[in-house]
């Protein structure tokens, strides 16, 4: 549990400007991060003073990221009230850390793209690679992208499968393609199982069912 010594050394090497402090069980990395990145021919630059906290029970709990010198407008829609970045949907981060616990690659794949998005938004008022809806809807959008399906019904069925069934390659794929799982969503379903997303999927399904009941009830009253 917690960040490994090898990972700490990697951060030291790649981000020499970062100061590293152990604070009880957590590791705190803080210092200047220089943004000089390009996406789709548009380059964004900037300097940020970051504080990345890797909790003692990482990767069960995820690292949190804050900017310390007010370089991020507090009204930016993707900032929590305590100043932490909303990096990506929880499901997405859980998937990521189930495959890769390297903090350098977390910085490269989530923190830097977040800062890039912020600068782009500041400049042009739009998100360079889109944004997720808030709350449960954002999770569902992530899953729809992850499973690469067109219909919400397919997302529902795949989630149901993840929550209830165990992986067997020869049964029919829950997406409804008529193919066997191993020839269809097999690889991605294995990853989802490895990331232990069952509980999350169950919680989302229950929430959706509750929402549905609430609506049905209100409908009757009217």
């Amino acid at each position, binding site marked *: 549990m917690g960040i490994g010594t090898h990972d700490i050394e990697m951060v030291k090497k790649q981000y020499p400007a970062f100061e590293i402090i152990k604070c009880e069980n957590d590791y705190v990395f803080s210092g200047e991060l220089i943004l000089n990145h390009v996406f789709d*021919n548009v*380059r964004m630059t900037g300097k940020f003073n970051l504080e990345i906290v890797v909790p003692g029970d990482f990767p069960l709990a995820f690292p949190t990221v804050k900017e310390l010198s007010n370089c991020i407008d507090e009204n930016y829609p993707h900032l929590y009230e305590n100043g932490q970045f*909303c*990096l990506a949907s929880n499901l997405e981060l859980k998937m990521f850390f189930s495959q890769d616990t390297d903090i350098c690659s977390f910085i*490269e794949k989530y923190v830097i793209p977040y800062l890039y*998005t912020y600068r782009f938004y500041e400049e042009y008022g739009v998100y360079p690679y889109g944004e997720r809806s808030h709350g449960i809807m954002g999770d569902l*959008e992530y899953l729809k992208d992850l499973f690469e399906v067109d219909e919400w019904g397919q997302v529902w069925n795949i989630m149901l499968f993840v929550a209830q069934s165990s992986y067997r390659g020869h049964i029919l794929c829950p997406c409804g393609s008529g193919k066997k799982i191993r020839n269809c969503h097999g690889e991605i379903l294995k990853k989802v199982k490895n990331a232990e997303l069952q509980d999350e999927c169950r919680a989302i399904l229950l929430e959706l069912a509750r929402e549905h009941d609430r609506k049905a009830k209100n409908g009757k009253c009217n």
Partner: protein
Amino acid sequence: MRKKELRQQDILRLIEGLDISPTMYKNATDKYKAVGTYLQDQGLACDIFPQGSFSLGTVVRPYRESKEADYDLDFICCLDEQKEKTTASYVKNVVKDTLCKSEVYKEKLLDTEWDKCWTLEYAEVNGIGFNIDIVPSVSESDEVIQSMVSSKLSQEDAELAVAITDKRNQNYFWVTSNPRAYKNWFESINRPFLEYDRQNKRRVLLEKSRTIYNSIEDIPEGLERSSLQRVIQILKHHRDVYYCRIRKENLKPTSAIITTICAEIAYGMDPSLNVFELLQIVANDFEIYSRNQTLTEEEFSRQYQSKKTIRKSNGKWYIMNPVNPKDNLADSWNDDPEKAEFFFKWVKVMRKDCLDSLQIEDNDFVALLENNFGRDYVKKSINLNHYASVAPTIITNTPKPWRK
């Protein structure tokens, strides 16, 4: 850090590179004249002349999703017909039908019928081509001319007006346009800027077009560029990129708005002003005009008595066409108030990118140039070794931000 003056030179070099080249200028001129001669030879009596940016010397290469697009050049084809004795439908279509009689033009003619013009496509050897847009028209009727005169336009200017055709929902209508009077108006303001240090500028131009022109006298005036023309080119290009990035291309201010406002601001200014000094003045005025958004009409005119180019009256925006007192160039801003809002947002960003950026760090400045002109184009046009610039890293993972 690279000096301010040298940075200005780099921006100028980039904007010059988006201008029409002397070769293409000559080529396009030859081609449109040939179209005129051809139509005449076919018995269609007409006069063909440039309008818009090609006639004003404010051409910039269109920006389409960061690709180098072909130039669009506009020409009025004024038929020798009386407006009262013909129809808009006939005028629009006889031009097409006559062009189609020639194999050469038939091949170049685009199938699409635009609302006001026909397009001939010319491919170039080096990859960048141009389109000749032909706008069929006739001379405006006496009735319209007299009504323009009674709205305080000079007789001389009013007589230059043409009636162009406009196709809406399968029906053809007449619309008044006056590109020749507009050109005269623009040139009268641009003249002193063009005259300033003229021989020197022509000499530089000759150096750049040695293969086409043998002496200074041979260089056509249409290739000369004043500070005012460069300012307009900078604004037009910045607009194209900005509105594309913010994904609001439908809200773009027209080139007519930009050209008119800039010329009015430049009117009577010191002709020795360089491009960036004039751009600064234009940007300052834009900032004043933006206060129209919050001040009442009365407050604004009290505080800025001389600022009358962009007006707000009874909640409506006005930018008057200098050669048509009935034409409010800001009409569409009143239908869609977001247009005005974004216009003032844009000019603020333009100021930051083209003027304030001259003092920022080298790396940030190079990033700005790349974002406004395209990375490959910047790389091939200016020597980046003069800047302390670090090559950027490419973003590979694109997580979408989310919130609980």
